[in-house]
């Protein structure tokens, strides 16, 4: 259990002038603060649901963003495992073992210059609400002290997500969380369309979309766009 004083400190630092800066993306500040506090190159925070859905909330750079997008497109990766096992997944050297567990993800991440990844689940009891992915462009583990700090940031991220929810009138979704829903809306729509076209369930439909994207070496968002605009049709 991480010292709650440390978590409170992180939150206080990040939200110091939030009152005066309207609409500031506090989660963006959190990942930036995380990147500065730790020997990592970048970090991203994503929400996850028990239905296997996900979305990026904030990332320090485009590589961190890619780490999230790869996992969404491929449906595989360390943060997915992290959230399922409810434990951090620490990969100080992405070239070792990772390629066996998540071959497509590893290839994509290495290609983008990612050498090490550390994924921390954002948990509320047994409920997984998200994940924080931290990466570095050189191999090497995080020290014990760094791991404690990283966990404090993950706890702060969890609390932040809950704060966002608390400040929103249920069942609305907070704008910071909605951006990823909007940018991936066509993927979800395409999933529905493919499910009917192929007479399969939604989970299978998403797998079909992912496979098509992978085979064509295109982003799943692009494939989905074509499906929605009826340029691509799936036939049984």
């Amino acid at each position, binding site marked *: 259990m991480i010292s709650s004083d440390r978590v409170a400190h992180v939150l206080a630092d990040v939200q110091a002038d939030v009152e005066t800066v309207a609409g500031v993306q506090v989660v963006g500040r959190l990942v930036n603060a995380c990147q500065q506090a730790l020997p990592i190159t970048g970090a991203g925070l994503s*929400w996850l*649901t*028990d*239905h296997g*859905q996900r*979305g990026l909330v904030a990332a320090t750079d485009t590589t961190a963003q890619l780490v999230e997008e790869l996992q969404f497109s491929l449906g595989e990766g360390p943060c997915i495992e992290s959230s399922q096992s409810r434990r951090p997944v620490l990969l100080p050297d992405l070239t070792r073992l990772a390629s066996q567990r998540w071959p497509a993800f590893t290839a994509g991440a290495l290609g983008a210059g990612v050498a090490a990844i550390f994924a921390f689940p954002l948990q*509320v*009891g047994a*409920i997984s*609400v998200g994940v924080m992915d931290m990466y570095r462009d050189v191999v090497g583990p995080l020290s014990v002290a760094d791991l404690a700090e990283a966990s404090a940031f993950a706890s702060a991220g969890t609390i932040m*997500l*809950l704060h966002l*929810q*608390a400040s*929103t009138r*249920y*069942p*609305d*979704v907070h704008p910071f*969380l*909605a951006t990823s*829903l909007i940018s991936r*809306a*066509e993927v*979800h*729509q*395409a*999933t*529905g*369309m*493919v*499910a*009917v*076209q192929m*007479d*399969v*369930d*939604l*989970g299978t439909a998403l797998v079909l979309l992912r496979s098509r994207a992978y085979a064509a070496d295109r982003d799943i968002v692009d494939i989905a766009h074509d499906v*929605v605009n009826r340029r691509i049709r799936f036939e049984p």
Partner: protein
Amino acid sequence: MSRESQIGRLFVTLADTLVDDFDVVELLHTLAEACVELLDVDAVGLMLADLRGGIQLVAFSPESLQSLEMFELQVDEGPCLDSFRTGEAVVNMSITNALQRWPRFTAEAHAAGIVATHALPLRLRGEIIGAMNLMSASEQMLAEADIALGQALADVATIGLLQQRAIREQSLLAEQLQTALNSRVMIEQAKGVLAERTGTTPAEAFRDLRRYARSSGTTLASVAHAVIEGTLETASQSLGRAPFGRSATAGVDSRLGGFAQHPIH
């Protein structure tokens, strides 16, 4: 059982509340009864703050003196309320002082046979969640050791209470977050399902879904869920569209319209 063993047992019981599911009322009764025994007082009352900033009596031992504590709340004066409001212990007041400070309460207390009252706050890192009232039928000063013990017992109970409350609040928020996000995704998926079934665009399907939700008085999320599940035989007449690739009138129920669907999970 020796006094030391009793104290030890009680701390273990209270500490258990930090890990297990537990019953708040049960905890507080345990605390109240133990204080009567260990601190050699004749009655103990426990009050907890409610959500509106007020305070409620939650446990009392023995039951027979409960009305005195209720009286304190009713007249809004007394050692327990002072302790709650200041976060400080209120102990070993002389009768003169007590009469001066809480005239109505002290008078009632005397009438009930209570001569001395003390109160300790339920407090954790600046948050005061309630107070504990200790009452004696004899003119009795609480020794330092007893005050310390009473506060220690109250502190352990406080940790458990706050943790439980925080966990409950956090779990509720986490569930709301999950449900809200899942619903939004489901609505997008339903747009796709409906668009494909009726040969329209997701945007048009969305308009149909919203119209149907409004006219049937249900939420968009539940309509989306039903479309996906195939339990809502929509698409045609009820949504004002001809079904894609099929005759608009073939085997159609005029109210719901539509054709049998395979449920899509």
